């Protein structure tokens, strides 16, 4: 018998992983939650059937969503993570001793519970004393915050489903308002390759640009995400992600990373022409 997990990357493209066994399958108020175990990618988490993280390649995503802003402003002390229920983003953040508090706002408690039990590789640092986890809608949480955070990381699902509110103008406006005057917002920015998410990606980009004086996108190669090519958004009130990179300062921290380094940091903002055109035409 063969067991395969298959995700439709488009109507005409499929991505499959051979599965050894299903570790967990459940339905929350918001979505279906599954954890599988595979030979090739180790354990992996899917939400509504869509790939979120695998043990084998999660380091790429989490390195890029955390270390890029941290190397631009190593003085970041107060961080808000919206989404990120698998805990990987928080895990990378806790490696900075200078960070004083991390608020994580995840709408779906089941995701956190399941990851704590089945994917400790990412969920292991959720009990760090600097971390507070809130189970509520990110859009609601941030509404009442003002001048509070140095960094907001939007580690969300796709723009269709429970993550929808995190790609909206009202959300980005609230984020801007919740950030301090030198605040940075980083978000997972979808893929520019297939057309399915293209419009929401472009729209999200345009909306971020409306609020933040500095907005750039950067890229990473993530094998298990549609097209394997993924974008992140860097939006800031003050810092340019490349010009203001604190290379020496960051390297002095001697953090061992598997994907990120400060050379790659600079390179990741050099994006292909077709992506440039997509974003410029917005």
């Amino acid at each position, binding site marked *: 018998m063969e067991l395969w997990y298959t995700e439709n990357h488009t109507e005409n493209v499929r991505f499959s992983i051979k599965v050894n066994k299903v570790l967990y399958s459940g339905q929350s108020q918001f979505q279906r939650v599954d954890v599988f175990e595979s030979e090739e990618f180790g354990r992996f988490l899917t939400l509504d059937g869509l790939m979120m993280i695998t043990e084998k390649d999660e380091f790429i995503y989490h390195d890029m969503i955390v270390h890029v802003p941290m190397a631009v402003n190593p003085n970041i002390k107060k961080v808000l993570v919206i989404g990120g229920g698998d805990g990987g983003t928080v895990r990378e953040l806790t490696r900075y001793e200078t960070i004083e508090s991390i608020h994580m706002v995840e709408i779906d408690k089941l995701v956190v519970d399941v990851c704590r039990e089945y994917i400790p590789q990412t969920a292991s640092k959720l009990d760090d004393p600097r971390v507070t986890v809130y189970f509520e809608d990110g*859009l*609601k949480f941030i*509404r009442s915050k003002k001048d509070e955070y140095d960094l907001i990381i939007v580690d969300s699902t796709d723009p269709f489903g429970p993550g*929808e509110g995190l790609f*909206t*103008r*009202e*959300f980005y406006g*609230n984020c801007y*308002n919740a950030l301090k005057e030198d605040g940075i917002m980083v978000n997972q920015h979808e893929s520019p390759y297939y057309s399915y998410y293209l419009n929401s990606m472009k729209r999200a980009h345009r909306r971020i640009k409306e609020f933040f004086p500095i907005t750039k996108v950067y890229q990473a190669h993530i094998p298990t995400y549609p097209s394997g090519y993924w974008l992140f958004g860097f939006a800031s009130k003050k810092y340019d992600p490349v010009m203001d990179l604190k290379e020496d300062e960051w390297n002095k921290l001697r953090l061992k990373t598997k994907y990120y380094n400060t050379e790659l940091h600079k390179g990741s903002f050099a994006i292909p022409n077709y992506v440039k055109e997509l974003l410029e035409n917005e």
Partner: protein
Amino acid sequence: MKGLSQENAPIYEALKAYKENRTVRFDVPGHKGGRGNKELTEFLGENCLKVDVNSMKPLDNLSHPVSVIKDAEKLAAEAFGAENAFFIVNGTTAAVQAMIMSVCKSEDKIIIPRNVHKSAINAMIICGAIPVYVNPGVDKDLGISLGMSVEDVKDAILKNKDAKAVFVNNPTYYGVCSNLKEIVKIAHENNMLVLVDEAHGTHFYFGEDMPISAMEAGADMAAVSIHKTGGSLTQSSLLLCGKNINADYVRQIINLTQTTSASYLLLVSLDLARKNLSLNGKDIFNKTAEIANYARDEINKIGGYRAFSKELINNDTVYDFDVTKLSVHTRDIGLAGIEVYDILRDEYNIQIEFGDIGNILAIISAGDRMLEIERLISALSEIKRLYSKDKKGMLESEYITPEVVLSPREAFYARKKSIPLSKSLGEISSEIVMAYPPGIPILSPGERITKDVLDYIYYAKEKGSLLTGPEDMTLENINIVEGL
């Protein structure tokens, strides 16, 4: 109706049987189950086109119901606590007009609040009924018109003993209810019938802790827009009759203007909506009220906005309040409701029901999820942060007491001429002018064009309201009654 219960849906069951029967079609509609219009079929779905059929023996006939439509109407009457119920496919407009035309002939008086939907004014143009207007109460702070005060109704009744009926808007678009039971009592004591425009009150029949419904209050007829909050398709509606009403005559009146090709899509949607409301209505509207209450609390926390509710109750012009309506007063952040309405749509991709001069209204239903509610609340919070301004110079009052000179019918059919709106001060309007939505006339045929009216029209235009009604769609010109 032997053996039928609220679990049944006779029209739905008959349509299913018809479809399974694969009857060969040599009747209209010519698309023949969708085969004749492939693109439409692909867009709407094969099932939909397959049951878009004409009346026939097994499916009954809306203008002369003897089988499944009759059964479905009986079940609806039972569900709504009415003596008789009519399925209406020409919108609640048709239901409102059928009510008025069923009880008023030409020159008959009807006691009616001035802030009625245009369908009621139009009914009077058609049948020649003479309105005796009762000014609704007004909330000066919110700039909205309220319900009718019992004293005002009583006064109108005593001064017009020959009136045939009292017409009540219940609830208003904003959720305001009058003291229906008392109005019914006084009207009946004076041999007048009570007609209720209950377009926004479907849920009163099924929810818990809701304001009293028209039928329960003893009203004689009610027009209920099942499509608004009851889950049927747009344009489908219900006309309810109490025991004092000759239902066979009402059917004749309905048939004067209603289509003879009633859409079975609309009819089956009424049938299934009634079933769903009967079986699950309590839960549905509990959830709706809960969501609306939550949204109201959160919006009030933002500050500047006022999401109003039961605190308006004053035992008179606000006898009760429908908490499922999410009405928000916006003037204190320096924005007209219509401006907030436009910003929500253009900048946040959120479509709400309407915005008027001082308020917006969002319709909350069982179809809503917290996800979208949070978006609405956050968008309002952002709109306040980004767009709010000084409220100086904003128009305050919404309700203008009309000066009625002629009946709507007299004015509409009078010798008239078109003159520039800017030169119309003091003239008598021959046509209706309203902002749509909500569709409540600013000016009705037969009313004097006063400075207040003109100020209001110009202000609404400037703020971006869609003004409808007049022959001249740009409203640069207006038809006035000549020789007065």
